[in-house]
């Protein structure tokens, strides 16, 4: 007699077979049969969040810091719609998520039943694929297929919608068979000819640059190792997008810092002036390119990406290599070593003028800011946080806004998977739940959410989750009482009309921490900052750190909108020298 399992059991058997150890979720009417089954599967631990968006971001943090897919389990209707922001976020930033939603029983679908919504319809544009399970006999296959779609090719979120009656019905369990041939959606079919062309461009280039992105991190830690090897073997400069930080050591001399709207002067100018741009796993996002028509006008462009639809989407490239970064870099290194052993030495002369030019740009010191002894400058706070945590293997998450850019500029990442931030969608409220997910995956590691006071209030309720599971996450709030990035744009573009960007009636974060049952620390002056940070690091419980910073500080350097890379706006020091007057400012 074959054994029959309920739909709910099949869900867990699939999760077991996929080696899922943690799921983030929130129960509700339409998923109760699945929750009922939880007690029978000890290998799977459920983390109860306080809002479904939190479940999604926590799963994202889990996925990004481990490279494994994150799993969330929510109910129908509001459960599903609350998860939409996190799914869209994961879709934009290519994070593998499997979202399981409950649905009203099959016979009630389409009747506007209680907590019914068209979940697959709503999530169609923000998932790689989704399924409504109509027959319990299809459930196991769909679940396994969901994991396959989420993790292969360019990773992303998927959703499986399971009506309540299907969760009760019984069927045989179909074991997971790893298919040799994938669904035809995974592309890794570049040729040696592509690689030879790349090598030929590399050997000819006088002003080359590597421009790397999140694809390197998604390709696994080995890809980051190979990237380092290739960058050292060529002696070329390298810059990284926001999502790519960590795949190359930030304190290495060949690293020019982040590029783009708030990237460094040297990185953006090098992008503008280069003659060879090698894009490794990035997607020519509009925050990176600035004005497209004047983006790096004189360069040959190479694009290495696993997603064919990323090629020529925003920027036309001269050589496209569609494949997994790890495989492409392996082939490139092999070919380079075979044809040009000791290339970095033999090529040193050819790119020496380029490096001289880069040093000139570097000497602008575009990340400098004017320090203060009275108020804590936000950049100083990040610098101190970095100095005091750099010897630990620290995981940083962020919210979205000025603090995020300052973190990207001033915190130096040396390893992949240590930096979790919402880049594509720019979701305020991402960092706190993401930190919960990261801490679940790495219980012994230091996890810090660098936050803004406005962002963190959007998902503050997840502190309760952190307390429940004893997750000693540190919420490091750069508190300037403003939605800082909004305020900055209003100052620069809207004649200082600070419309609704000031938050009156902020909570007392220290008391709030105490109310949640965790620890609150406040730093008011630069003098006490170090001691307070050390106090935070020595606390083995969740901490909310309220760091009161300069309220007027802006995030520089900055590429004004509609401008190319070589027309950056530098910080206040430089602005004084250049005397940008009222008229110049409206051009921003």
């Amino acid at each position: 007699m074959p054994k029959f399992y309920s739909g709910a059991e099949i869900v867990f058997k699939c999760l077991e077979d996929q080696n899922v150890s943690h799921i983030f979720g929130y129960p509700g009417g339409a998923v109760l049969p699945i929750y009922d089954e939880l007690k029978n599967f000890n290998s799977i631990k459920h983390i109860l969040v306080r809002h479904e968006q939190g479940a999604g971001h926590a799963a994202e943090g889990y996925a990004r810091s481990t490279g494994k897919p994150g799993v969330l389990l929510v109910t129908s209707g509001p459960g599903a719609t609350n998860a939409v922001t996190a799914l869209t976020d994961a879709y934009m930033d290519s994070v593998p998520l499997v979202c399981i939603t409950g649905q009203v029983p099959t016979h009630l679908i389409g009747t506007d039943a209680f907590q019914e919504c068209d979940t697959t319809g709503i999530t169609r544009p923000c998932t790689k694929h989704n399924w409504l399970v109509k027959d319990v006999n299809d459930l196991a296959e769909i679940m396994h297929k969901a994991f396959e779609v989420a993790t292969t090719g360019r990773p992303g979120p998927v959703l499986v919608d399971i009506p309540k009656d299907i969760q009760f019905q019984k069927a045989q369990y179909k074991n997971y068979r790893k298919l040799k041939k994938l669904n035809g959606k995974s592309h890794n079919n570049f040729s040696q000819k592509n690689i030879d062309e790349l090598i030929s461009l590399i050997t000819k280039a006088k002003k080359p640059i590597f421009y790397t992105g999140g694809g390197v991190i998604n390709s696994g830690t080995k890809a980051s190792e190979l990237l380092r090897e290739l960058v050292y073997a060529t002696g070329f400069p390298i810059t990284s997008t926001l999502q790519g930080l960590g795949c190359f050591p930030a304190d290495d001399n060949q690293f020019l810092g982040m590029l783009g709207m708030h990237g460094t002067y040297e990185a953006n100018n090098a992008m503008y002036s280069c003659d060879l741009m090698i894009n490794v796993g990035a997607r020519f996002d509009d925050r990176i390119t600035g004005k497209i028509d004047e983006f790096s006008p004189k360069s040959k462009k190479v694009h290495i990406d696993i997603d064919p639809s990323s090629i020529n989407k925003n920027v036309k490239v001269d050589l496209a290599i569609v494949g997994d970064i790890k495989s492409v870099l392996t082939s490139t290194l092999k070919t380079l070593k075979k044809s040009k052993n000791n290339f970095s030495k033999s090529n040193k002369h050819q790119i020496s003028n380029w490096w001289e030019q880069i040093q000139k740009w570097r000497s602008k010191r575009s990340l400098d800011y004017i320090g203060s002894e009275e108020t804590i400058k936000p950049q100083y706070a990040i610098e101190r946080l970095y100095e005091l945590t750099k010897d630990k293997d620290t995981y940083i998450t962020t919210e979205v806004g000025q603090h995020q850019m300052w973190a990207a500029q001033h915190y130096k990442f040396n390893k992949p998977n240590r930096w979790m931030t919402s880049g594509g969608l720019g979701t305020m409220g991402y960092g706190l739940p993401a930190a919960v997910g990261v801490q679940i995956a790495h219980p012994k590691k230091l996890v810090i959410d660098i936050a803004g006071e406005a962002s963190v209030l959007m998902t503050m309720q997840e502190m309760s989750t952190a307390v429940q599971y004893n997750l000693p996450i540190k919420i490091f709030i750069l508190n300037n009482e403003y939605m800082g990035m909004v305020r900055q744009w209003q100052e620069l573009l809207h004649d200082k009309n600070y419309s609704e960007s000031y938050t009156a009636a902020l909570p007392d974060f220290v008391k709030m921490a105490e109310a949640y049952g965790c620890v609150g620390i406040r730093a008011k002056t630069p003098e006490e900052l170090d001691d307070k940070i050390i106090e935070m690091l020595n606390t083995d419980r969740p901490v909310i750190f309220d760091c009161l910073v300069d309220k007027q500080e802006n995030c520089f350097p900055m590429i004004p909108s509609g401008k190319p890379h070589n027309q950056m706006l530098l910080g206040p020091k430089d602005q004084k020298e250049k005397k940008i007057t009222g008229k110049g400012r409206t051009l921003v």
Partner: protein
Amino acid sequence: MANSKSAYSFAGKKQKPDTHIIVVWVDNEAGVLARVVGLFSGRGYNIESLAVAEVDQKQNISRITIVTTGTPQVVDQIKLQLKKLVPVHKVADFKREDKNVIFKEMALFKFVANNGKLNKAFEACKKFNPVILDKTNKSNVIQITALRREIDTMSKNLKKFGLVSVSRTGAVAMTRGSEIFK
């Protein structure tokens, strides 16, 4: 200057748009048309006409024919984005001018008029394989197959013969000769 007050850059140079016929082979499953059409509307692509039906009952394959206009860059994106959808098997793309491809649309015309006019209407349709599907002493329904523009002209010109209602399909396409699209 209004534009400069934006967090986004301005639109760059525009290429010239062309009309393309995109043929998509998909699994015939719930929601598949919504996925394809949603991709077009979500990314701001055009749909001029759409024809869809199952073509292989055994393997459950439907064939979707979409007429769209776009710059070369947009048409490339359409194809690549379509290929990423899980239920999509293959995607073909033909330019409207392509001589090696046959495009056809079908139209049904209903005429209400006297016999003389009805006969003239049928005569006028002669070039487009007319078939009379229904006839009474004061009306008839004629089916024609033709190109989009031809049907456009016909439905204008036939008004004088008592054309009261037009129903038409989207374009379908097939390559000439023995070759098939793989």
